[in-house]
């Protein structure tokens, strides 16, 4: 058996062409990477700002609130105790709002007052957990707050919030930091009630299942008739409309940014595709002589461009995640801004961009190939 020289068994494979011609593929890959990085970063940041703005009250969306005087609420508690749909509930009182600092703005941040022994189940119900420290002890003025909230005010375990300059006069000691999808702070209902005296209160019942929540709502309205208590969904239709409008504005803004980027990127992509084509004319002449049709040449070229753009796009997304992770560590975590790196929005916004670039490149390549006469080139070159 003849000893064969070193070399790829399929020298015309797309991967060899791409891998061995980095200078030819790099410009298009870099342009896609930078565009994807830029847009993905903007989208992540914009989405993060919305999430951060909504964070202090986001946990309330899944809840029903029962308002009334303390005696009526105590009666309601007796009824709720046996209803599994109301298993996770907490008391809210005026003295249990603390000052938060979200996006550099002061805001009310509620502390859920959980019944004795109910801290762990309340956290679990929201998908949260204790990140460091522990749950507040029963009957004390201890609280657990979200890591993001603590970051916004530069608070640490052992620090005391409340008192002068805050929204509650009660000195609440931070004993735990929570993390998870919802920002909630919890404290001991008996501890706060013992220290804080009377005042209007409310019961917050968390129930994420809409049908179960609606059924509970109907039961409560029958069992706890007005005016002794009132029952309401925490997020009224008006709030939802506002939120929707807010999101629409943001979507419009992102759409505009994406549109401008798409126009710029596709123009550059088209130009690069043309240069890419020009650089490879000798190869196309050769392949034509070997019997390759223009259609197969177009498939090959567009396939390569798709791989180049796809790689640039993926690298851009990865770079955006890395960039945002660094920014989160260095800047955002200190300002209580939530960066959600698992947010799929950057992919939704940048994928059409990559697709559009490939489409424009395909059109440019198609036009260039349609005008390409390999035999005329051959005769011109000799």
């Amino acid at each position, binding site marked *: *058996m*003849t*000893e*064969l*020289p*070193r*070399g*790829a*068994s*399929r*020298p*015309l494979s797309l991967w*060899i*062409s791409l891998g*061995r*011609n980095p200078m030819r593929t790099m410009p298009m890959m870099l342009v896609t990477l930078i565009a994807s990085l830029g847009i993905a970063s903007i989208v992540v940041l914009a989405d993060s700002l919305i999430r951060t703005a909504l964070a202090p009250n986001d946990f309330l969306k899944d809840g029903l609130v029962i308002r009334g005087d303390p005696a009526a609420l105590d009666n309601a508690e007796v009824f709720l105790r046996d209803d599994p749909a109301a298993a996770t509930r907490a008391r809210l009182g005026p003295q249990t709002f603390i000052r938060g600092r979200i996006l550099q703005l002061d805001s009310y941040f509620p502390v859920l007052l959980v019944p004795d022994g109910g801290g762990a189940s309340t956290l679990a119900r929201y998908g949260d957990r204790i990140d460091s420290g522990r749950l507040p002890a029963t009957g004390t003025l201890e609280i657990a707050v979200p890591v993001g909230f603590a970051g916004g005010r530069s608070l640490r375990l052992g620090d005391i919030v409340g008192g002068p300059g805050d929204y509650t006069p009660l000195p609440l000691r931070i004993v735990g930091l929570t993390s998870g999808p919802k920002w909630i702070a919890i404290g001991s209902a008996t501890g706060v009630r013992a220290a804080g005296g009377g005042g209007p209160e409310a019961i917050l019942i968390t129930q994420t299942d809409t049908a179960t929540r609606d059924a509970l709502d109907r039961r409560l309205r029958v069992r706890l008739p007005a005016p002794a208590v009132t029952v309401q969904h925490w997020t009224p239709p008006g709030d939802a409309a506002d939120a929707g409008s807010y999101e629409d504005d943001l979507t419009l803004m992102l759409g505009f940014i994406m549109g401008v980027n798409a126009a710029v990127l596709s123009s550059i992509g088209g130009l690069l595709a043309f240069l890419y084509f020009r650089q490879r004319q*000798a*190869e196309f*002449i*050769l392949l*034509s*002589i*070997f*019997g*390759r*049709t223009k259609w197969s040449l177009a498939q090959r070229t567009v396939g390569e461009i798709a791989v180049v753009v796809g790689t640039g796009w993926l690298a851009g997304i990865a770079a955006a995640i890395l960039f945002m992770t660094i920014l989160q560590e260095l800047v955002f975590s200190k300002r209580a801004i939530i960066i959600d790196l698992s947010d799929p929005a950057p992919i939704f916004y940048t994928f059409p961009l990559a697709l559009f670039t490939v489409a424009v490149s395909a059109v440019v390549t198609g036009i260039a190939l349609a005008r390409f006469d390999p*035999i005329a080139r*051959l*005769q011109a*070159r*000799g």
Partner: protein
Amino acid sequence: MIEAVGVELRFGEHAALAGVDTTVPDRGLTAIVGASGSGKSSLMHVLSGLRRPTAGEVRLDGTPLATHHVARLRSDRFAFAFQDHYLLMHLNAFENVLTAVAKPTRDVRERAAQLLDRLGLGTAASRSAWRLSGGERQRVAIARALVRSSAYFFADEPTAALDRASVELVYKLFREVAQTQAIVLVTHDPAALAVAHQVIELRDGVVVARP
């Protein structure tokens, strides 16, 4: 067998070929000779289907060439080598030879290695194309054309960039190949006439001498 019957090829007012009648047998080496601009390359292009004649007809095995699927002919029955080597610079010599075959088998790879060896490129087979000299690149292009064992091999001045020793190697290989295949060689080289089985001489697009 390829036949040209009353073939004309015009580029505007200029007639590159003016009523050429000739045949290329399915074995042996046919040399097309003539002065620059006499229509040598044009005749090769027409005979191989790279160009359609303006008038007249080219037949392959008795069937008009125009009725054949040209791309399939180029991939299955015709092979080419030109003065410009058209090597892919990101590949080495051996890989460049393999580009002629879509899916190179072990046999093809062995044949590629043998051809390179026969053309004096055994030690240069793994060398990048951009590191080869002009003459070496030309010989790689010839090996690439021959690796498929096509029925007809069209070569347009393939030895123009070669030294005398390399030309001898090429002609020796051509002589062997011509035992089983047809070679159509466009050349200025008088030495080619010694290995040719037939010679077509052109002057101003007209055949002036043939066997």
